[in-house]
């Protein structure tokens, strides 16, 4: 049996939405080098719709795949929907993750939520 599902390997090998958004209006970074996974999410939100999302990740296969899948799940969605994203949804969309890798999907959820919070803060401070 392989370590990861085909879906995980697909998103790991061909990660979607990799990169940065120069004029992002919501940025979130979570994780730390100590535990071995760091994710950074960039959001471009217009009219409360996530027009574009990109990520950068330092981490293992499941961390990269989780980032990729999380961006796919929220792209084009209204902010209110994106806020409901859970790590479980990310893991399920990847056809599951090994138990000891679930923390990677948690990180993906946190990265998205952190970027959304940044967006809200920026809006309030305008």
């Amino acid at each position, binding site marked *: 049996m392989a370590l990861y599902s085909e879906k995980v*390997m697909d998103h*790991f*090998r061909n*990660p979607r939405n*990799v*990169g940065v958004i120069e004029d992002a209006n919501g940025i979130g*970074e979570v994780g730390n*080098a*100590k*535990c*071995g*996974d*760091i*994710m*950074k999410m960039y959001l471009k939100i217009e009219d409360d719709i996530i027009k574009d999302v990109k*990520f*950068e*990740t*330092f*981490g*293992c*296969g*499941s*961390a*990269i795949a989780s980032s990729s899948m999380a961006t796919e799940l929220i792209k084009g969605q209204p902010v209110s929907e994106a806020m409901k994203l859970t790590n479980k949804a990310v893991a399920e969309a990847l056809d599951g993750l090994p138990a*000891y*890798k679930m923390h990677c999907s948690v990180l993906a959820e946190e990265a998205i939520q952190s970027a959304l919070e940044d967006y809200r803060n920026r809006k309030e401070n305008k």
Partner: protein
Amino acid sequence: MIYADNAATTKMSRVAIDTMMECMEKNYGNPSSLYSIGQEAKEILEDARKTVAEVINADPSEIYFTSGGSEADNQALLTAARLGKQKGKMHIISSAFEHHAILHTLDRLELEGFEITLLDVHEDGLVRPEELEKAIRDDTCLVTIMYANNEIGTIQPIAELGEICRKKGVLFHTDAVQAVAHIPIDVKRENIDMLSSSAHKYHGPKGVGFLYVRKGIRVANLIEGGAQEQGKRAGTENVAGIAAMAAAIKEMASNMEENAEKLKKHCDRLIEGLKEIPHSALNGDPVKRLPGNVNFCFEGIEGESLLLLLDDKGIEASSGSACTSGSLDPSHVLLAIGRIHDVAHGSLRLSIGEDLTDEDTEYIISSVRDTVEYLRSFSPVWRDLMEGKKEFIL
């Protein structure tokens, strides 16, 4: 496919497989039985004992067959602990980067009241004999230092350590699982009292190994039962496995010098090539290392993703990253040589085999270079480093 994880395990050699098959087919007798097929099996065992003993310059009576390196390590430590306890000596010295077969056994002994001192292995991955000398106390019953480290390949000054222990009258054990059949070992010259070995690290089968214990030291049992192995390790012997181990070690020992030279040439080239990757560093002393081991840290990337992508390119290697160990901490070996978490996660171990070619070597270098570059291209850590928000460590 390029198999570069020989420190994890090796492919069985042709002669080991053939020996094992033949033994399973023909020599199924129990070595403890007195009829002829039993006695033939017994003879195979004793021939094997002679063969492995010769490789480390021991006497056959000093060899106890075990189920591998872990069992040998456990038995050696327990043997010394028992003897120590009888004399009220409850102090054990080891090193910070031993295999878990040693470290976890030491944890258990600590719970039983032993005091453990772990020697520093410094940035070069080497124990200092003078530090051992200072650490030995009147109540020290054992010094256990590995011959060569399984992750970074550094070879310890075993002869010097052995001499100190002998002079001070302290038992000296070495976990030589990574060293046996790869580099010359002489238990007499190096004053080694006990030594662990495992067949699957030198093209023998898994689940078989041996413990050498110098004559006169009373061995403690882990497994009670029949009178096999001088009554020190019960259970009907793994005759085919032991025969295959002997066949494997014999072949490796007779080609040792030639193999080492070949491996060293490839590793030197690998080190030279990988060093050119910016912000990378070799782990462990560049010279005092196993001929087939190369271990690097690459800043700004994580090891597991590097391994998976190398696997896609047909290269099988390993890493000390947390994500490959199933815990949140990277390898204790890399931490012991002072690599901080941030870079320890980005490690790569290549433990090459004797059949590696020059082309393979170049292919490994270019594949690692490309993959590291690719992973850095979307690493937020690398971005911070490049933008000066964080300082480079390597």
